[in-house]
């Protein structure tokens, strides 16, 4: 225990003294960083609606927002081999051609492309470093400072991901048009099935006013292939960057060095998942705003894909802090794939003598059935069970009793 500060225990003291502390603690843990891209099929119906929905979807709070400004890229035809689990050459080529990896690195250091000036503000903020101590160690170029940089590189910069979402609308127009007609014709019955008879009448009205939009939108379904890439940030890359390209004052040489080296930064292909293509419930969607259905379908499918990617790729998994220890709760739910069968390891974060962080597994917890928060997009509007819980309650499976501030990660 010498030289190790038990962050979790400290957090417990804070959390039990002041309930607000738990909420604040929730914000203070290291997350992976994410840049999401949409491949937008302009040859398909609803291309604009999908695009407009996508740009409104925020980065989930389990990741840092590492978005670059351009997020939507159009194609006029289906991607070749989109269903294959293999690396997609069109996507990889796009990422390399546009030197996305270098831009993600530049964003980490808030690099000014006109002067080359960088700073460590984002690294300090996301790495939860003591800003004053961090600055001092960097200025002294100490061993401790070097360790901090390595720690930040490994756990923060090296955990920067690019999600490429190839969203295709599944055109079931004929089927849904029939469905829409049935709804309109049998207004009372159909309406009752979703909320009330009012719905059937509204469908009829809207069909007249906005053509087939509502009819089609009710059967709206998307298939999403999500490709995951990870920024390569190894010792060699970091050394070159810090020595040859990083500058905190205007420096033309270092600025140009980075520009010339942009192509040397790399993303590695991690893997790919495909959404199940299941129909999303229309519940909670106001018929006056059928475009909300597009966002609901897209966002839920993307969230599901992120969960699947986490399941398959350990590096991409997120951690969530425990809010309270009695009962054990965490701000995580069905959006993150929590189910009655889930199990989570409990991690205690420790700060080592050299300023780096590490994690120690201290136990295992599982969700309590019927106390799983449904935090999926629009769960509240559709009246889903568990939508108002605000957090998921867990029970201890093994190990020591978790305390507030410790992290849980699905296993």
């Amino acid at each position, binding site marked *: 225990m010498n030289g190790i500060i038990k962050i979790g225990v400290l957090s417990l003291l804070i959390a039990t003294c002041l309930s607000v502390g738990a909420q604040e603690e929730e914000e203070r843990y290291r997350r992976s960083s994410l840049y999401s891209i949409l491949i937008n099929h302009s040859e398909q119906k609803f291309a604009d609606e999908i695009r407009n929905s996508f740009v409104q979807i925020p980065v989930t709070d389990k990741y840092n927002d590492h978005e670059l400004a351009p997020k939507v890229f159009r194609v006029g035809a289906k991607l070749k081999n989109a269903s294959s689990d293999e690396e997609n050459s069109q996507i990889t080529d*796009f990422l390399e051609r546009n030197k996305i990896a270098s831009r993600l690195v530049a964003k980490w250091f808030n690099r000014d492309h006109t002067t080359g000036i960088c700073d460590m503000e984002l690294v300090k903020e996301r790495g939860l470093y003591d800003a004053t101590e961090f600055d001092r160690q960097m200025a002294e170029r100490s061993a401790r400072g070097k360790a901090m940089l390595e720690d930040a590189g490994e756990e923060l910069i090296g955990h920067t991901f690019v999600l490429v979402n190839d969203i295709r609308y599944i055109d079931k127009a004929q089927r849904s048009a029939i469905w829409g007609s049935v709804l309109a014709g049998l207004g009372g019955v159909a309406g009752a099935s979703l909320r009330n008879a009012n719905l059937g009448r509204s469908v009829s009205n809207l069909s007249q006013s906005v053509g087939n939009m509502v009819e089609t939108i009710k059967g709206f379904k998307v298939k999403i292939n999500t490709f995951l890439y990870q920024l390569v940030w190894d010792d060699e890359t970091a050394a070159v960057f810090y020595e040859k390209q990083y500058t905190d004052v205007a420096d033309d040489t270092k600025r140009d060095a980075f520009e010339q080296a942009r192509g040397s930064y790399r993303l590695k292909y991690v893997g790919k998942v495909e959404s199940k293509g299941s129909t999303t419930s229309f519940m909670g969607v106001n018929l006056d705003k059928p475009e909300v259905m597009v966002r609901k379908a897209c966002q839920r499918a993307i969230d599901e894909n992120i969960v699947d990617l986490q399941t398959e790729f350990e590096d991409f998994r997120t951690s969530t802090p425990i809010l309270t220890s009695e009962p054990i709760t965490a701000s995580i739910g069905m959006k993150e794939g929590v189910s009655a069968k889930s199990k989570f390891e409990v991690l205690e974060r420790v700060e080592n003598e050299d300023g780096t962080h590490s994690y120690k597994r201290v136990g295992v917890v599982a969700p309590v059935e019927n106390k799983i928060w449904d935090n999926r997009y629009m769960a509240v509007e559709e009246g889903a*069970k568990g939508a108002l819980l605000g957090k998921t309650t867990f029970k201890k499976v093994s190990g020591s009793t978790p305390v507030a501030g410790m992290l849980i990660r699905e296993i």
Partner: protein
Amino acid sequence: MIRIKHFIFSRVGLLLILLGINGSLCHARQTYVETNGKKVGVLDEDGNEVIPFAYDNIEPWGNLYRVEKKEKFGLYDEAGNEVLPVKYTQISNLNCYGRAVVCEKGKMATTKTGRRYLNKGKFGILNEKGEILVPCEYEDLYEFIYSGANFKFSKEGMCVSGGGIYFDDTLQTECKYVAFGGSKHEKGIRQYYGVIDVDKGQVAVPANKFVFTFLPSNGFARYYSQTPDNWSFGYWDLDNQTGFEAATGKGDPFTYTYWTHGDFCGDVAPVNGTDGWKFYNRAGEVIRSGYKSIRHGSAVRMWMTLDQDSTMTVFDEDAKDIPVFSGYMNIIFPGKQWETPLFPVKNKDRRWGVINLQGDVVVPFEYQDMSLADLPFIGVKKNGKWGLITPQREELVPCAYATVRYPVELQPKHVWCMKPDSLWFSVDTKTYKEYGDGFESVETFRDGMAWAKPNGLDVKPDWFSNTLTGRKIDDKSGFKRFVWGIIVNETCEPLFPEPVNWYYRDYAKESVRKKGRALRPGEAHAVLMKKVSPNLNYFLNTTLNENEWDY
């Protein structure tokens, strides 16, 4: 069997639930609908039935519930008492003033653009208690929401456009008065409509009596009426149901370039006749006349008139003279009510000073001209140059400038001042030191920063500047599209050094606030790209230009 859960909470904790006909599932704070169930009711938190399960839909409606059954609507209170029986074709949502439309008969229909309206129904008005203020007797109702666009006469007050009630939205006004009837339209304005006093629930101005009637004010409705030869301009007394003509005119009133008559303010109304301005009282009598110009100070509720000899008279809205202003040649009414009303006045020596309501001289008569801001600052002119003082005669800016921009914050540290070369400089209000190299146009300082266009800043049209002009700006505001500047602090140091279009200036300022310091050029570029990128089209098979990326 599909089971759908649904919750809606009212403000007082009553739980609106949708329940299947088997009615077996009723959990606190959760509701269940089943496909073979159709009825809706309201339970309290203990599960007791408050509104019976007899309705197709129930929604919170202010403090009440709006219930629907077989396309008829009614209202219940939270205790389950019927407020309005379920017999109305439609009850609109409440607006923020507690007013809604209630209808009988007719059939709901939809326009081609998707707006929902009632066809061949009878309209009335409800308050938030569910009380019918205007009975459902009118084939249509209209709100006074049309300013008449560019027509001079209609700028004199709100009138009625052709559009009726749509149920996609609430009513838009407090509906003290609504219009009904009428038929003809001209240039977007409905004609020959009548007016209902909503609180009294009765007709205040009969339909088909006047061509145009304006939103009533102070007990009178101003009207335009047409005779075979003339137009008649007058006032209709809402209480006594009588009117009087105040002036006449010839030709199409849509082409008039002058005001004909104004609403009653207090007990008097101004009328512009062939013999100049005059004032009528509520009895329709001319009580003052012969003025070549008039001015109204709404914040101080006063009138100023100049007669043909340029003698000034000031009187209140009860037409009582205010003697402290007699003997002066001109007066400026404050646009907003200051804590202590002060009045710049011009004396017979043609010098301006400031007096209070007691006639005491607050600022001596030593200025060529004066002007007033909304905040307590007084623009003063001496030797042909403008400066700025406080009512306490504290000099903020010396009289040395072509013009001065009024501060919008109390205790301003810097004020924009323009020199004769038409360039703006930031002047320190303590030291009078000037900052900046001169700006062509400036925005008033707020929170220590302002958008300002440096002299000679020339943003050439290219991809980036075109992007930043904002694609969604409509033509009416298009003049701003090509106005570029930077964000500076009060000493004119750049805080957001990249040229930013006027349209995005607040966004740029917000980015500076978030950062807590001046942005570097590259940071500013990144901020702007983040804002505009969602509006742009990129293609997967292309390589973007460097300036299309933020990093």
